[in-house]
């Protein structure tokens, strides 16, 4: 039975990649014991479906939609806003389904050798929904919306190094920085940095909701839902659906029910506890996509007993990461290796061996630190991640075998970020994904970063971080990040048990390409123009 299933999958794969025509496909399938109608059905449902069809109305149940959501890109924060932003607006660059960097409103980009001056060539065919051509003036107004004294944007810090943005003709912009940044094109995928039309005075017109994205808003009721129709002048491939309807479904049960009863075709964020049950429904596919959102347990490297690297290593060996993933996250997470770079991020090292759960090794390091047993407190709150406290309790069970006593402490949900994080020597933290290792390390691992949550000071790491920042040689840069990850794993003060996955679901009628982007839910928020109806 299993062989047959495997053969069927192989066949479908070959057919999808074009190695097999329909006739050969049928012949092999029948030879393998399938009936002709079955084989023919398989061809239409699985193979032909890989070629996108146009048409249909794609209805999506989205969580975290609030009445207070606005079109101001400076205040983008909720999941709902991020999904809307990717649908009616566009960015200079995009994160591709393969998690690489691709062009969107900019066709190409290049940097000066010190990575201090960046030139972006804009797409000449791109238009806004009102028919206006997209030009450098629009791009500059859009980026300047997040800069300057008066800006209220949350992305202000991201563009802090930018000193000037100039137009060079109608379709070229030049961005100048006060320090080299090889990551600038990646920054342009940040969800705040949408391209919006410029007003006559050079400010950005965000109020109208007009964008240059694949779909144009036809009705927008904050917190309730948003409807769209296709932007026929869109400058790229895709946008297969005729219409999109996003419905705010904040209640997890309401989302799942709506998907089951067919009121919507896809939903964001499936409740982990019931994800497996939902997956049993033959008409529904639950997507489980590794993301860059890490759970970190930072220890203060300048506070006893964590100031001893052997104590830190003992604690890193004393956790059974797979067990945490299975029991706390119901399998919807990816095991971490104590460096804050997920597999989907650029420059992610592939050759650093996974640290195993090894109580003997933990005991060995404890002994090396001159201790026979150890008692430490670990603070957590369930508002950070449902099950956070349970995770700490389970960790303490693992650590007992190594003679380590971890006391899991339940902190108050309110004010966790102001009273516990960066205050208690060991606590539970959840991070949203950042697009590049540089951004993550600069934010939370650099020696003088205000958010250096583990107080980690490593000279070599910080040297490498500065070098890699402006390094344009990709190979050299990857090597530098590999070394930084190794240092973080072996010397750093942060235990990273796992990266949480994005778990969302779609009806079988909805099809997508071979890969799904890891940046946001629903294919990086771009399922609306990448997916199609079978």
């Amino acid at each position, binding site marked *: 039975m299993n062989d047959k299933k495997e053969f069927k999958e192989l066949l479908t794969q070959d057919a999808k990649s074009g190695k097999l025509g329909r006739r050969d496909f049928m012949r092999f399938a029948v030879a393998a014991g399938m009936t002709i109608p079955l084989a023919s059905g398989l061809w239409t449902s699985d193979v032909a479906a890989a070629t996108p069809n146009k048409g249909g109305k794609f209805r999506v149940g989205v969580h975290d939609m609030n009445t*207070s959501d*606005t079109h101001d890109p400076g205040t983008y*924060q909720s999941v709902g806003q991020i999904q809307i932003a990717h649908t009616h607006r566009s960015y200079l660059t995009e994160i591709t389904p393969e998690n690489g960097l691709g062009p969107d409103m900019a066709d190409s980009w290049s940097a000066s050798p010190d990575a201090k001056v960046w030139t972006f060539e804009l797409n000449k065919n791109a238009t806004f929904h009102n028919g206006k051509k997209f030009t450098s003036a629009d791009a500059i107004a859009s980026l300047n919306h997040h800069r300057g004294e008066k800006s*209220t944007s949350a992305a202000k810090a991201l563009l802090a190094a930018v000193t000037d943005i100039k137009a060079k003709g109608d379709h070229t912009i030049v961005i100048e920085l006060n320090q080299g940044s090889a990551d600038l094109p990646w920054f342009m995928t940040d969800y705040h940095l949408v391209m919006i039309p410029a007003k006559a005075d050079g400010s950005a017109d965000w109020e109208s909701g007009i964008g240059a994205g694949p779909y144009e808003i036809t009705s927008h009721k904050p917190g309730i*839902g948003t409807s769209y129709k296709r932007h026929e002048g869109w400058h790229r491939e895709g946008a297969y659906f005729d219409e999109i309807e996003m419905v705010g479904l904040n*209640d997890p049960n309401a989302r799942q*029910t709506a998907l089951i*009863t067919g009121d919507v075709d896809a939903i964001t964020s499936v409740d982990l506890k019931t994800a497996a049950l939902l997956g049993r429904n033959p008409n529904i596919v639950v997507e489980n996509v590794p993301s860059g959102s890490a759970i970190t347990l930072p220890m203060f490297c300048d506070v006893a007993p964590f100031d001893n690297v052997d104590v830190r290593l003992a604690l890193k060996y004393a956790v059974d990461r797979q067990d945490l993933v299975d029991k706390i996250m119901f399998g919807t997470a990816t095991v971490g290796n104590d460096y804050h770079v997920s597999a989907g991020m650029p420059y992610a090292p592939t050759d650093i061996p996974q640290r195993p759960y090894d109580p003997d090794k933990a005991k060995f390091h404890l002994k090396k630190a001159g201790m026979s047993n150890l008692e430490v407190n670990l603070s957590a709150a369930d508002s950070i991640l449902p099950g956070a406290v349970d995770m700490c309790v389970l960790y303490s069970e693992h650590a007992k075998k190594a003679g380590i006593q971890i006391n899991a402490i339940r902190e108050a949900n309110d004010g966790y970020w102001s009273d516990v994080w960066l205050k208690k020597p060991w606590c539970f933290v959840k991070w949203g994904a950042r697009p590049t290792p540089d951004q993550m390390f600069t934010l939370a691992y650099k020696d003088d970063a205000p958010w250096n949550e583990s107080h980690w000071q490593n000279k070599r790491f910080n040297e490498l971080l500065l070098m890699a920042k402006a390094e344009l040689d990709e190979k050299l840069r990857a090597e530098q990040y590999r070394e930084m990850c190794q240092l973080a794993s072996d010397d750093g003060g942060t235990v990273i048990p796992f990266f949480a996955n994005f778990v969302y679901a779609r009806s079988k009628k909805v099809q997508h390409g071979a890969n799904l982007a890891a940046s946001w839910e629903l294919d990086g928020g771009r399922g609306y123009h990448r997916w199609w109806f079978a």
Partner: protein
Amino acid sequence: MGDILSIIAKRLGLGLITLLVISIIIFFAVELLPGDIAQAVLGQGATEDNLAALRAELGLDRAAPVRYFEWLGNAVTGDFGNSLVSKTSVAEAIGTRFANTLFLATYAAVIAVPVAIFLGVLVALFRNSVFDRVANVVTLTSISSPEFFLGYILILFLAVKGGMFPAIAKIDDGMTLIDKLDRTFLPALTMVLVVVAHMMRMTRASIINLLASPYVEMARLKGVPAWKVIVKHTLPNAWAPVINVVALNLAYLITGVVLVEVVFVYPGIGQLLVDAVTKRDFPVVQACCLIFAATFILLNLAADVGSILTNPRLRHPK
């Protein structure tokens, strides 16, 4: 009749004062909440820099009493201001949502009130019978269960398994009335289940209470059938307490349905209020709360007027 009009006028005046006091309480309650709108809007991305910029833009750097009286001055002239977050006018933000809430409340009330009173009369008639016990147990069970739980049960059996009604009560202006009634049947039914018990039990209790009075005994002795005793002789005297309970439940249908809205994704005013409080969007919070307060005041007034009208003795005080 003149008495009633003067009562109404007096009560409306008192109602206005109540609203004023409530608006002060709400304003300072929102002020007391930790954090402010700038922090709520910017969230994780907040820095000292952009917080200050946003506060200045919204005028939050001025003293609280100044902002309150500015709001009050405008409100008296009928201008409830703009939402601080979305910048749209409060009237626009609340308009359709309040209409939706009223629609659902009316839908539920039109079913619940006649059913409750009819059942109340029936169980009073057949009191202590099996029918009485069953009706009591069923309605008391439904009032004792949290609304969201009732909602989920109804969704499970009537939407997911039965497929008879839609699980998501998403309505918009383009729908016909029939469509709307079908879409919102499950949330309306949930609310009916929540309020029926209270009204039914009150009807039953006040009727049974009256059944012990001498004039009812007199009616029985002269041979009036049992149902007629209840409908003609006791019910008119039972109206006063029943009307009060009905008014209380109608107010609840408007103000207490946030959970039902969430479970069925119904775009009503409750969800708007919750969102506004989390974002510290004071003008919207204020307007929602005043609407709720006015609902209670008006329905209470209606209840009092109703009981006076149904009871001639109250109309002619000695």
